[in-house]
């Protein structure tokens, strides 16, 4: 049991109810899709248990940031452990070859969407070598993104993005931060927006997914073109250094998600477009003592002193819940646009607890992320078992 009651915690009765409902829905959605594959079914069931435990812990203790982070990092590890071996199985290495480009079989990820949008509208062509309807092709990704924007807004970046989890993973590894962010220049958090602007215009001029070619750090855990000339070596050098610097080293040292908060142009895109989602993170000015604990800890630099005095997080907020975990006064809460702040002293009873903005948001977000991650995490579980039994990550 937690020592203090957190603003997002629920009574035992409500938590059990919410967890049961979640388990039911997850079972229906995760296991339902794998009925003809018993091994995936078993792996899915294991993951289902994991998700159920996480759900209960989040609702009961109210430590949203902490337990969400365990889910999110597991998801990212599961993604890497299933995606890289899958590439090796199908094409023998992580390299993206010319044939794959010609046959349009590069998997598309959400980070490319803002770049390919304008050329797609102006010329009616995709500037990325992917198919329209393949499993990780354009339309499925677009659909997924629409859902993510509707249900999560930029919450996508703390509940749905498999890359963000890698950042999160490294930011959680060390127990204490080594580099303090006291002197951090907050102008830098506008970098992703500027970068987005440049990337979108540049992609339109060059008709090429320039972010993928030049910058994307997550090529390091997915696929990349084998460098054959000096220009390609420059490109490789750039993405490897960004990966090591912003996804591994700085998160370790600062305990913040530096890639997501200071670099990712899709994050910036999602921050702006995600405003259509009705949830917000608000700060109760009457309770807040301006201690700035949250400002120091927000993983994506989405809280500044100015934002705190205005009573809401910046648009880049990923709804991760960390600030609510650490606020000593319980002054920060999930809220809905136009809905007055909740008075946490009041218990509210069963229905009062179920129909709280935070409950509704967390339930939806966890369900969305849980189903989205299930395939990847389940396959990675199968691969790990295979490693233990047959000594190889590869299933074929």
């Amino acid at each position: 049991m937690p020592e203090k009651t957190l603003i997002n915690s629920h009574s035992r009765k409500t938590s059990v109810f919410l967890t049961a409902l979640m388990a039911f829905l997850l079972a229906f959605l995760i296991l339902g899709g794998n009925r003809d594959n018993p091994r995936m079914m078993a792996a899915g069931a294991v993951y289902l248990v994991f998700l159920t435990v996480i759900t209960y812990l989040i609702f009961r203790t109210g430590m949203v940031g902490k337990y969400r982070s365990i889910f999110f990092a597991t998801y990212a590890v599961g993604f890497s452990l299933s995606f890289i071996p899958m590439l090796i199985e199908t094409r023998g290495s992580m390299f993206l070859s010319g044939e794959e480009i010609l046959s349009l079989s590069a998997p598309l990820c959400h980070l490319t969407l803002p770049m390919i949008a304008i050329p797609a509208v102006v010329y009616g062509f995709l500037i990325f070598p992917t198919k329209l309807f393949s499993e990780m092709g354009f339309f499925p990704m677009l659909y997924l993104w629409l859902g993510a924007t509707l249900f999560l807004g930029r919450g996508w970046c703390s509940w749905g993005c498999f890359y963000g989890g890698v950042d999160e993973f490294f930011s959680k590894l060390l127990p204490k931060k080594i580099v303090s962010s006291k002197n951090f220049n907050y102008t830098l958090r506008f970098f992703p927006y500027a970068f987005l602007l440049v990337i979108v215009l540049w992609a339109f001029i060059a008709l090429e997914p320039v972010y993928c070619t030049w910058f994307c750090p997550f090529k390091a855990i997915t696929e990349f073109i084998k460098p054959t000339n000096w220009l390609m070596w420059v490109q490789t050098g750039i993405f490897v250094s960004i990966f090591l610097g912003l996804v591994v080293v700085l998160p370790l040292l600062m305990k913040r998600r530096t890639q997501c908060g200071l670099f990712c142009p899709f994050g910036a895109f999602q921050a702006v477009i995600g405003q259509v989602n009705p949830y917000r993170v608000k700060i109760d000015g009457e309770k807040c003592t301006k201690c700035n604990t949250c400002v120091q800890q927000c993983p994506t630099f989405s809280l500044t002193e100015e934002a705190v005095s205005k009573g809401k997080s910046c648009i880049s907020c990923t709804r991760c819940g960390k600030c609510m975990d650490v606020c000593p006064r319980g002054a920060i809460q999930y809220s809905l646009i136009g809905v007055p702040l909740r008075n946490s002293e009041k218990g509210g009873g069963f229905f009062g607890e179920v129909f709280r903005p935070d409950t509704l948001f967390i339930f939806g977000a966890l369900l969305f992320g849980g189903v989205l991650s299930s395939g990847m995490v389940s396959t990675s579980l199968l691969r790990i078992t295979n490693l233990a039994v047959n000594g190889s990550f590869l299933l074929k």
Partner: protein
Amino acid sequence: MIEILPRALFLGLSTGIFCLGTCAPVMAPFMLSEERSAYSEKVKPFLLFTAGRFLAYVLIGALAGWTGGLAGNALTRNLAGISLLLLAMLMVIYGLTTGFPQLRFCRMISPYLGRIRAPFAAGILMGVNLCPPFLIAAADVFVMGSAFNGAAFFMVFFAATTVFLVPFIFLGYLSYLPAVRAVGRLSSLIVGAIYFFIGLNSLAS
């Protein structure tokens, strides 16, 4: 002489969307970076940039018409590379002085920057830069063999392509938000860095 002008107009209108794409990375930062209250102040960077482009176009046009050949030879390519490098430096300095004015370097350099009027200089550098639509336009002028016709051709071409840049004026209205200004300044830095690389690359090859 008259018959070439509709051609310039048509060419300008049909390739204008490219001008938009090519000039946007340079224009957008200038329009977004500084807060300007009066309307005349808001259009100022746009006008300066446009004036710079105009000057460059007329000069290049006259030169191309006069010499009867420009594209393809090493001089033009070097000119493009050098102008890109200069443009890159200008953007970086502009981004630094507006975005991080407290830096020592910025305090030293900002009085000079005010004097050269960054958008104007950027317009000239952008104008002599050989973006694709510009190259086709230039190819047309080579065959004319007259400085006057060349200049006239480019003036019309300039007017037609400028139509596409007008929407940028509205970007100026966004600059009242401090966040937008910060984004504008940082994007100036990024564009500078990228152009620097492209410039170096084109000089090296």
